[in-house]
């Protein structure tokens, strides 16, 4: 055991913080889906995402069993998808709720803990947009699932 404060086990420390009971998963919940008149555009988008998920599930065996995403792709395209996904979540809900969402996806086995940690590392390097971030709703999480499926297809 080293006593040098520069050489502490960072993964262990993050696990210690992640293990706290209430925050992250306890405070996390899906936002209500607001039905707005003339929501045909959202309906179309949801339908498109569902079709894409179905296609990816048919093409990718890994989507048959949880956790779906066990590692992030090494490829350039894969990294672009990661950044695009995180930028979207960040712009919608801010840093804290995005971090909570990633924790939640790990808790429901959409992604592994290791992937969760890597995503939070990526996240810490991104800038939070100015403005008032809102909550993520059901459609945002479906979109996250689409991104996860896309990333699975690249691994």
């Amino acid at each position: 055991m080293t006593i040098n404060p520069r050489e502490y086990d960072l993964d262990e420390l993050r696990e210690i913080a992640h293990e706290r009971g209430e925050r992250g998963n306890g405070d996390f919940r899906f936002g209500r889906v607001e039905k707005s008149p003339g929501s045909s555009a959202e309906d179309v988008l949801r339908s498109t995402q569902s079709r894409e998920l179905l296609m990816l599930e048919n093409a990718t065996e890994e989507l048959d069993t949880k956790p779906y995403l066990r590692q992030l792709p090494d490829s350039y395209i894969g990294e672009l998808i990661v950044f695009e996904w995180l930028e979207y979540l960040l712009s919608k809900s801010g840093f804290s709720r995005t971090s909570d969402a990633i924790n939640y996806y790990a808790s429901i086995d959409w992604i592994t803990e290791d992937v969760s940690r890597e995503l939070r590392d990526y996240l810490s390097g991104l800038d939070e947009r100015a403005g008032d971030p809102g909550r993520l709703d059901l459609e945002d999480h479906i979109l996250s699932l689409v991104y996860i499926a896309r990333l699975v297809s690249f691994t």
Partner: protein
Amino acid sequence: MADDDSTDEDTETETEGATDEEEEEEEEEEEKQDEEPESEPEETEPVPIGVKLGSTRTVITLPDEDGDDQLIRTLTCIATYEDAITGEEKVLYGEEAATEYADRVQFMLRSGLPENEDSAELATRFIQELVEENALPSDSIVVYAIPTIDNEEGLNNLNRIIEQSGIGDTLVRSYPESLCGSIPAVGDDLEAIEDTFIAVNMGSTNLEACAYRRGEQIMPFTTGGVTGNEVDRQIVQKVEEETQGRVNIDLTTAREYKEEHADFDDFEPFSDVVQQPGGGSHEFTIERSIMDACNDYLDDVVDEVANSFLPELANDYMKVYQRALAEPIVLTGGMACLPGVVDAFETRLIEELQREIDATAPDRPDLAAAVGARRIAGRLVDIETD
């Protein structure tokens, strides 16, 4: 008559027999009780303890019987003396040692770490006395908040001290003092370990600055040139100047003046009396010495942060730099206790950087490192006992 005697003997025998029977019954009863299964002793959890072993003060936190934080705070010093009756060597530590044996009290961690064998041995005795007097449990998980100083020998010495301390049998961990001190400032739990921010630890023997990215230490910076101890030395010098050479105070008095009177918002001049050599006393008033020294210190802190630490951070970790400056800078350490220092730091840094920044500090910056360490230890206990 003989018959009567026989009868008496028989009676006695019967009586004895009856007594023997009673004794046998009692023994059987005791055996039965011995055979009854004893209730197993309850397994107790290790106690979470946070320790900040500072160059001037040591702070230890652990839960009391009600689960609230129990604080042990003492000066990191020790004095030995010979018992007048037994001739045995005895040890005093903390305020008692500094008061009663001011001439030979030793502060073992002057530079932040025990530099040699002698100071390591004294520090070991210090911590053992502290543990024994406060009955700190050996069955404990201890987290130490340690300054980030590049001193391999000092760290090796500290390691030996920790091993002989008598606490932490279950587990021992150590983390940077500036990280531990930031934990109570950022939230009620361990939110600091999930955030990106800059911490500045304003200690008595060094100034530390560091960025933290989800618990990861980024660009740790330390200087021994801007310290609380230097403020005390400056106060000694400035008091002498302000009183035209009439008043010479020692460093302990200077520190006490600083802690009791320094105030960046609302300093008030104060008076004191010294005994003159050759008799008589001299009353004097301090109007500027304390705040001149403190203002010089804060200017130096801002200079180091703005012109040494932040440029290096921006150069190598631009994203972290941008993200961290969007959050309040956390000030910790003994000098962060001075009233008004947070706002004064903020104002001066804004002027230096020509951009908006925020600063914050925990409620008790002098205790924060031990409190943060204790929170980590508490989480380790939860994990260990799951």
